[in-house]
């Protein structure tokens, strides 16, 4: 589930449309494939725009409100563009007990933004999750799609700092 923006977005645009089209075709445009299709769209575009949701609704013969309802029910789907980097802190019970809150607070301070938001410069989205199913390595943090187990606040703060110090990808 990488949300990294493509290095060269312009030529990729058509391709993404084609890939999404292929996914829907594979499911024969069945309405019950909605979640799989939304997954693919989220993966390809990084977020689900109203235009994208409307086109999925049309293709799968579903009412727009149903598509919107499903897309807003699951935390995995995002209706707003994500930052260049994403950092997801698991706040499930095991991670919480192992100090996930402290990690989150540290990262919030480091990035200067609240959980669930994207920085104004679009460099970072700081998100939370309710259990990623990896309780054995709690506390868990996912940084740009890479799962980090036994996370520790100070190490993560340093990694995040290094990541944000890198030269931004040309946009």
């Amino acid at each position, binding site marked *: 589930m990488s949300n990294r923006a493509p290095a060269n977005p312009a030529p990729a645009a058509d391709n993404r449309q084609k890939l999404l089209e292929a996914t829907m075709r594979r499911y024969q445009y069945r309405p019950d494939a909605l979640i799989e299709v939304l997954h693919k769209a989220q993966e390809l575009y990084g977020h689900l725009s*109203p235009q994208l*949701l*409307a086109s999925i*609704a049309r293709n799968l013969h579903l*009412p*727009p*409100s*149903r*598509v*919107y*309802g499903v897309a*807003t*029910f699951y935390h995995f789907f995002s209706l707003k563009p994500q930052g260049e980097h994403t950092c997801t802190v698991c706040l499930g019970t095991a991670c919480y007990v192992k100090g996930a809150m402290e990690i989150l607070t540290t990262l919030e301070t480091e990035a200067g933004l609240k959980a669930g938001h994207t920085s104004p410069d679009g460099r970072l989205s700081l998100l939370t999750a309710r259990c990623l199913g990896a309780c054995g390595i709690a506390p868990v943090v996912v940084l740009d799609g890479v799962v980090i187990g036994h996370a520790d606040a100070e190490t993560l703060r340093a990694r995040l700092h290094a990541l944000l110090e890198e030269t931004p990808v040309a946009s």
Partner: protein
Amino acid sequence: MAARTLTIDGRLVSARAGESILEAARDAGIHIPTLCYLEGLSEMGACRLCLVEVTGSNRLLPACLTPVSEGMEVHTATERLREHRRAIVELLFAERNHVCAVCVASGNCELQNLAIRVGMTHVRYDYLNPVCAVDISHPQFGIDHNRCVLCARCVRACDEVEGVHTWDIAGRGVNARVITDLGVPWGEAESCTSCGKCLLACPTGAIFRRGTSVAELERDPKRIALIVASRQERW
């Protein structure tokens, strides 16, 4: 159709196979409170007000979705159920801003009637006081999310009776809201046929006809003079 005999609150009741406990009880004149149930729409079991005790089951079962069976022993008004129902109604009141005094539905409201029926004198829980929008972008109707109990009767009426599915529920938990199309203001929802079935289905003052709420009455007293003037011209 095969008949089933069961006891509801100690009374022998005969019901058709496949019928729900709720239908059997209503036919027998036994009242079970409901909120999300509406005759003509599919059952959803969302409000949990029709929960009943069935001997042999540890769990409470929703009467609207539980089919009758032979020899079933149902209790609809035990002390435990009464307490649960009152708690459910109190939680509904605590979750949004149900201010009856300024509500268009006061006196004709299923939630208000339920509160009276279950004997709710006050709410034991902290009010959440959420900030809820009122959408009057539709020319004929309005929706006040302060009064919505998320029974989904509008959603089902629109989908199953009108066949449009303009409404659905977005978000989850306390952030859940009924929405139209892709979460757009109702007036911009292209699929809406303005049929008004959601208005008929809504149990509270959440969906209302515009022009009927407080301070919405518009009079045009000048028309009296206009009528009189028009008559004078003709005669």
